[in-house]
């Protein structure tokens, strides 16, 4: 009763990057499809309906944002963006255009796999309706709206719960400041980042063992927050998961 292998589509114009991504994902049990440009990529996405797409932002024939826009017009397949460190703004833009997460080149395979699994889990959770999201000692029940820490229920304000709820719905993936501000305070407040900073600080004091070294609600500098999802498997020796490693 083996499950069918999930399919990943790699859209990147660099053959060497595609080569190591193919190896990495095949070792992890994926079927790998490759596309060298946006045109081929969009075609493959339509014809082969992959379970996951890796999208490089520096494609020669189309802006990464536009590829995403075309893709999101008909599909909600999980998309992980591969970017370089210099384009923080572009990263935020594609996340708001519907990308599920990003990794910065150069990245470690384990980090990419963790982001990919989180994005795919979210996809499954949405279709199956899995009610409880966990992150370390924290459990968020999205149906009963109960949050517990090490099994003990804790009381949160409405906004604190909303923050955890949004992060929980995207567990393991980054949620941008703007997305959070819009979800919690409304569309008119997307520039009031300081509200969010103070709210996160209060929440961390309630749920983190050491609020100065957060392990549950972790910060992506200049981009947003993510609800940490430590990998259950033992590969934590690999690079790229410094935060989880420090929290273990």
């Amino acid at each position, binding site marked *: 009763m083996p499950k069918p292998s999930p399919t990943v589509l790699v859209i990147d114009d660099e053959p060497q990057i595609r080569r*190591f991504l193919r190896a990495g994902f095949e070792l992890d049990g994926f079927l790998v499809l490759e596309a060298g440009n946006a045109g081929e990529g969009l075609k493959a996405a339509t014809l082969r309906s992959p379970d996951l797409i890796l999208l490089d932002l520096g494609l020669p024939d189309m802006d990464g944002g536009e590829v995403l826009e075309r893709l999101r017009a008909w599909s909600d397949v999980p998309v992980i963006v591969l970017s370089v460190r210099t384009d923080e703004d572009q990263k935020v833009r594609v996340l708001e255009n519907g990308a599920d997460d990003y990794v910065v080149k150069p990245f470690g395979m*384990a980090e990419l796999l963790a982001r990919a699994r989180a994005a795919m889990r979210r996809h499954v959770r949405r279709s199956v309706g899995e009610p409880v999201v966990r992150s370390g000692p924290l459990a968020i029940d999205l149906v009963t709206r109960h949050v517990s820490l090490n099994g003990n229920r804790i009381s949160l304000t409405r906004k604190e719960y909303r923050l955890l709820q949004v992060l929980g719905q995207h567990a393991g993936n980054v949620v941008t400041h703007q997305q959070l501000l819009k979800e919690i305070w409304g569309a008119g407040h997307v520039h*009031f980042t300081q509200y969010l*900073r103070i709210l996160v600080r209060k929440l961390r004091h309630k749920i983190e063992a050491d609020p100065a070294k957060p392990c549950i609600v972790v910060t992506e500098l200049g981009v947003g927050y993510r609800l940490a999802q430590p990998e259950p498997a033992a*590969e934590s020796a690999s*690079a790229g998961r410094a*935060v989880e490693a420090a929290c273990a």
Partner: protein
Amino acid sequence: MKLYPIPAALGLVAATTGVLIILHGMLPIDHVTLVFLVPVMFCAAQWGLLPALTATVAAVAAADFFFYPPIYSFSIDDPRNIIDLMLFSCVAVVTSELAVRLRRAAEAASRREGEIRDLYELSRRLAACTSPADIYAAIRDHLASSLGSRATLIADAGKLADAPDDPLKLPAEVGAGAREIFARNSLEPRLIVDPRSGHAWLVRSVSAEALDFGVIAVDLGAGADGVEAIKQRIDPVLAEAAATLARLDVARLIDEARQRTETDLLRKALLGSVSHELRTPLASIVGASTILADAPEIRRDPRLHAVLQVLQEEAERLNDDIQNLLDATRITNENVQPHAEWAELADIVNAAIERRRARLAGRRIDLDLRADLPLVKVEPRLIEQALGHVIENAAKYSPPGSSIVVRAVADAQRVVVSVQDQGIGLTAEEKDQVWERSFRGSRHPNVAGSGLGLWIARAFVVANGGTVEAVSAGPRCGTTISVALPVVADAVEQSGESCNA
């Protein structure tokens, strides 16, 4: 000038009369008055209307006295002769008038021609000018040669610093007038009389539209007559000069803008391609090595694992070097314009430590962050980068196993993050030099690095409105490097109330 033509006219008439008397003696002439038209016309053409009229009256008198009977008397017998003289007078006056007008027209034409030739000369000279200084020299020479006026340029301080010093002594009143034009920003020309020499000076802006090209003072000479005419002649000269100045200015601005754009494009292209061309192969190396690191065969063999670790660490170092190179280029181009946002300092400090954990090599980080630190308004990535360099530096110059204390405190004005190590410390000279580009401590030549780290750190902190400071009790006594960031007041107030929902 005005006195001589009248005796001359009388002389001419007398000479004509003499000639006629002689001719008349030999051969009687009926219409002597016709001959008298010659001196009258000559006077009109040569000296103007008044001498011509004088000549006419004299001619009438002479004709009457010498030629019309009774001769040698002013009385006339024949009434036809009276009519003859009256007709002569009319014709003489009318033709004189015409001759005078003609003369004036000819004079005006030749003067205009001269002026146009002068102006043409000036524009030819201006066309060859490549700097404001050339233009001012051209204006001065032109006014001197064509108007006989001396001119001096009073430039606005700074704006026309390269205008040449003028040997012309400027009367104090004229200088004051020029300063007043600047002070009032007025484009109205002024006429100022120097009380000592009695010379009239015209002081006006070179351009009739703006004071941008400075103020010019023209010495119009003594006496007030002709001032209007000279003023009018100066106008086209200055208009021409102002147009040339404007052309030079526009050309300079265009040139500057083009150079800026080119540098900018070049820089962006360079940054983009360095970033892409170097990072892409590096991404393959790092990615591939992490796959190998997870392979059971390698994880089982500590030697292979060590080899792979070398690969990963060196790739990581190369990535940092590329980042430093990009940052250095960005700083050198004075292009660090932070996208400031409200940020939690603890997040920034944690990120800086985490990203460098692999390079701390056994040094312990003791984190001491006050829980109530105010938010800072900075570009988090830049400060993270800066603190990272400071922490890495502390690790590099302190013994393995020692601890590095990262502490953050705040007062009303600023938040200070200090990184304290138990390392080699700083000498007095080193304390001043550590922030310089490419500075490497000469006491420790075998520590690897480019000397860019602290220089980048300082540039990024300063760009975000902060300051840096290095303190050390001396060699082998450890070093404390502090990064101070400004506290922006409204963060705490605004957010305090908004979260109590």
